[in-house]
């Protein structure tokens, strides 16, 4: 029996001050293999009898295929097979609403780089030579090269589906009384802003190897962030049961969203492996990586906001136009994301969001770190800087006055739980000496502030289902080792380490006693993949549940054996012992033996499904997340007024991380985000150019090489001061939130704002190239408006708006014209907070809050 002075053991949880691992910097579990060359990426794999594939890619941007002549190529040395589109007739695409891709073009090509044939040969050289010998005849169609051209050119259509002409998707949403809001405003501000596209640029080129194991069983090894979605796409296109296909995501050499689509080369090698009965490999060249893209959409935006004199906002109207490239990819989601998270940082009582995504004859755009959010965030945060100036309110103060309170439901029905944005702003303001220095630095030197918020996992999966979004299994046995199985993919962000640490913490064992088996669709339970900053939260919760269940079993067995009540058992230091007398206990392996003897073979599972969000209108599926992370950043810049050249000297960045699982990796994510944000802000451009018309109709990438596509190097990085704000979110594992994407968001607008503080030039577009700063300086010198940016936003018919009452108006999350819509009455509906909603739910007051 327990001694009278002993206390029940405190379990490892976020309230437990005695966490041993969580919160302490530790070496990432894959750290050693990553510094020894031991870790194998997809292209490092090779198998006996492996053949190599090269893709023949379209040389024209938009055309009907008249003829493909492979006769010459088939005779070339080493050629094993040449495959054309007819062999893979089933279309696919990451989103069920836009399955518009074929692994190899059928009849039509939609951008330079679209694959039309696949050549397999004994060596890579032979495949390359033979691919050059494949002759394709095209009937060239007019090229749609921009948003503007797409708006003006409904015919010929790049795709036969979509909202109209070459407009893939149109969105029109209105939350609350927007027009009234503008009428109540003292000042209405309007900005037109352009955010150029840019690309992920992972240093690892995509690679995939498929190995046939039977007539109808095959394994694909690939550099993918989303093995589960690749698995689904393969089953669909190859028309064989998913159970016969095994997808293993190798460690990814940088993803940033660029390896989240199922890719044509993945499908092609898998098909060929089954056809040829031998391993097949494809590795993209760097140029091909630029052409398969799926990166940041170029977005033209118009933002109008009403402010009262005190700085509070009355209404906002945002219009965005996205240049989508040749295929759907994640584009429909990206389109919604250019508006969805606009409400999460500051209180907006009424909000109208209109968007259009155009198809153009360029590589498809998709998700890149921040997915659709950096563009409108840039517009919003420079807009606020201008508002602050106009209203004569300090920019930091303006943001603080408008902060969205914790536990709010926003105008567009997102539940925002904990928020540390206030602490974040206060931290960077104090750290940078903002109050003493902003607006007061000598000419040429400036400070700029911006904020942001990001999801910790998309609330909804990509395809509609009721299953968990993350699953974890544990296997424990008498060795004392714990094997963890989970479908998540390590892309460098440290998800393996998060998984191992959570289980090790709860079971009180060391990381060395944990074995991971991840991202293998045959062996691991489904996790949707490494995108939308979902892994720490969702996988983390599933891992906690699995580990807690294992702890319970072990505690039962040990408690019975040692005659100690289960809740007096402590799991720590690879032991299970009595809280009143640490000597009384068992080693962890003895404890597992006790449990294995008592319960038989030991295994537990955990799963995580996000809570359902309250929005019920069409489009409400994009934006919800279990919780949101928040970031504030201040940049200090020095601009040379003669040349427009500038240097970012220092970045202060504070991030609401909820709780840092491993601070050293959190800091790494922040620094990587700052770096990538600076790249976008200063220099990176995914740009295209027409070749001289008499030579070619082509629209080609302007700089498809690592040298020409400028990205920051070792000499370009400022000093970074990072602050972690810990808000212990109740929905996060041990309180944790995301950090992989959020910290990128404020960098671009903070730079624009800093340049303005330094030299009084507004660059309303990204990248903020020095030549644009110079242009602004020259305009200023001539007494003209010192602004560089797009002149106007085109006239676009976005369609009839879907009207949705806000929580404050007593709405129920549905569109007004939805027959099920009801206005909520009573029960404090006017405040629209999560608390009120919970209260209403408890009292079953408002019929439509959760039922569907």
């Amino acid at each position, binding site marked *: 029996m327990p001694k009278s002075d002993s206390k029940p053991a405190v379990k490892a949880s976020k309230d437990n001050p005695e966490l041993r691992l969580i919160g302490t910097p530790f070496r990432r579990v894959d750290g*050693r293999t990553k510094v*020894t060359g031991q870790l194998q990426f997809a292209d490092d794999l090779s198998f006996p009898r492996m053949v190599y594939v090269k893709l023949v890619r379209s040389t024209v941007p938009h055309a009907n295929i008249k003829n493909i002549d492979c006769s010459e190529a088939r005779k070339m*040395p080493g050629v094993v097979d040449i495959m054309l589109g007819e062999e893979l007739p089933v279309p696919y695409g990451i989103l069920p609403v836009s399955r518009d891709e074929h692994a190899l073009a059928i009849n039509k090509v939609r951008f330079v780089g679209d694959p039309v044939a696949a050549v397999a040969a004994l060596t890579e050289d032979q495949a390359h030579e033979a691919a050059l010998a494949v002759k394709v005849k095209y009937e060239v169609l007019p090229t749609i090269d921009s948003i503007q051209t797409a708006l003006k050119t409904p015919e010929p259509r790049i795709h036969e589906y979509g909202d109209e002409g070459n407009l893939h998707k149109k969105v029109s949403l209105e939350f609350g009384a927007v027009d009234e809001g503008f009428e109540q405003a003292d000042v209405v501000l309007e900005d037109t802003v352009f955010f150029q596209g840019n690309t992920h640029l992972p240093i690892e*080129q995509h690679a995939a190897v498929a190995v046939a194991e039977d007539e109808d069983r095959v394994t694909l090894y690939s550099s993918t962030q989303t093995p589960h979605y690749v698995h689904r796409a393969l089953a669909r296109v190859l028309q064989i049961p998913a159970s016969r296909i095994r997808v293993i995501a190798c460690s990814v050499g940088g993803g940033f969203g660029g390896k989240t689509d199922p890719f044509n080369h993945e499908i092609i090698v898998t098909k060929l492996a089954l056809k040829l009965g031998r391993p097949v490999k494809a590795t993209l060249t760097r140029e091909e990586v630029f052409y398969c893209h799926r990166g940041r959409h170029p977005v033209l935006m118009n933002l109008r906001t009403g402010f009262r004199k005190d700085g509070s906002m009355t209404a906002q109207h945002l219009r965005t136009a996205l240049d989508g490239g040749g295929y759907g990819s994640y584009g429909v989601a990206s389109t919604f994301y250019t508006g969805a998270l606009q409400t999460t940082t500051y209180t907006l009582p009424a909000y109208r969001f209109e968007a259009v995504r155009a198809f153009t004859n360029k590589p498809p755009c998709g998700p890149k770190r921040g997915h659709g959010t950096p563009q409108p965030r840039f517009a919003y945060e420079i807009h606020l800087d201008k508002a602050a100036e106009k209203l004569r309110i300090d920019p930091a103060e303006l943001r603080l006055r408008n902060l969205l309170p914790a536990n709010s439901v926003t105008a567009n029905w997102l539940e925002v739980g904990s928020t540390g944005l206030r602490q974040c702003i206060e*931290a960077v303001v104090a750290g940078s000496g903002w109050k003493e220095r902003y607006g007061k630095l000598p000419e040429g030197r400036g400070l700029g502030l911006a904020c942001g918020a990001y999801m910790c996992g998309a609330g909804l999966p990509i395809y509609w289902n009721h299953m968990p979004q993350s699953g974890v299994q544990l296997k424990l046995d008498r060795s004392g080792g714990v094997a963890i199985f989970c479908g998540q993919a390590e892309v460098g962000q*440290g998800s393996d380490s998060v998984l191992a640490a959570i289980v090790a913490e709860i079971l009180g064992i060391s990381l060395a006693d944990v074995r991971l088996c991840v991202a293998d669709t045959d062996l691991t339970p489904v996790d949707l993949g490494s995108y939308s900053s979902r892994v720490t939260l969702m996988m983390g919760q599933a891992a906690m549940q699995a580990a807690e269940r294992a702890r319970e079993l072990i505690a039962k067995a040990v408690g019975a054996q040692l005659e100690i009540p289960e809740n007096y058992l402590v799991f720590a230091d690879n032991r299970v012992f009595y809280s009143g007398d640490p000597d009384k206990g068992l080693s962890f392996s003895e404890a597992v033996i006790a449990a294995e003897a008592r319960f038989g073979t030991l295994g537990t599972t955990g799963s995580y499904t996000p809570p359902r969000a309250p929005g019920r209108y069409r489009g409400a599926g994009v934006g919800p997340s279990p919780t949101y992370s928040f970031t504030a950043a201040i940049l200090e810049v020095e601009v040379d007024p003669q040349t427009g050249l500038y240097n970012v000297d220092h970045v202060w960045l504070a991030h609401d991380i909820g709780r840092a699982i491993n601070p050293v990796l959190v800091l790494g994510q922040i620094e990587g985000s700052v770096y990538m944000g600076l790249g976008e802000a200063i220099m990176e451009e995914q740009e295209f150019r027409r070749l001289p018309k008499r030579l070619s109709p082509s629209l080609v990438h302007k700089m498809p090489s690592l040298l020409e596509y400028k990205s920051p190097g*070792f000499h370009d990085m400022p000093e970074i001061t990072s602050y972690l704000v810990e808000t212990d979110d109740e929905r996060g594992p041990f309180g944790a939130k995301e950090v992989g994407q959020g910290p990128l968001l404020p960098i671009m607008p903070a730079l624009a704002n800093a340049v303005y503080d330094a030299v009084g030039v507004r660059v309303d577009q990204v990248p903020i190239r020095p030549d644009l700063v110079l242009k602004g300086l020259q305009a200023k010198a001539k007494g003209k408006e010192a602004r560089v940016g797009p002149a106007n936003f085109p006239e676009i018919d976005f369609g009839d708006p879907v009207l949705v009452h806000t929580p404050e108006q007593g709405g129920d999350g549905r569109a007004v014209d939805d027959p099920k819509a009801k206005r909520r009455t009573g029960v404090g509906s006017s405040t629209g907070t999560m608390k009120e909603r919970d209260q209403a739910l408890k009292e079953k007051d408002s019929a439509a809050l959760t039922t569907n």
Partner: protein
Amino acid sequence: MKARSTTTTAVLKINDEDHAVAFPVHHTLLEVLREECGLTGTKHGCELGECGACAVLVDGEPVLSCLMLAAEAGDRNIETIEGLQRNNDLHPLQTAFADLGATQCGYCIPGILMLAKALLEREPDPSEGQIREALSGNLCRCTGYNRIVLAVQWAAAMARGDDWRPPPEAFHSTSLPQASA
């Protein structure tokens, strides 16, 4: 058709071990290391001399293995990432990179580690500027570089037997400043 390549043979001395290999004459050292010798620790990001991922040391000097023909590498002393550790003990650079989180996806790291090794052999106590200069030909898309620079400084200290460590804020958050009222 163009005449196809002829094959040649060579004995390459890699990490003090001889590898007798046959390969097409036009193949680069990168290709032969990875495909003929099975040393896949050396990576590639461009095969055009633009990213530095493929860097190895040849006679102690950094070389982009994608730009050197393997046929030129016979009789030379080639060092790759696989040879950096001694038996099962990590080189200080490896320890520092792993412990400081200076590797994220890890793909650019072999090249960077080899360049850093050459630097430390030349300059046991390099300044921050010297480190940035030595590594400036290498791209990393994950880390933002600063942590790599710090890891090299830390490794240099370890190698010199100096107990200098990166400051605490490299491992933990910088403590939150008090908001001035």
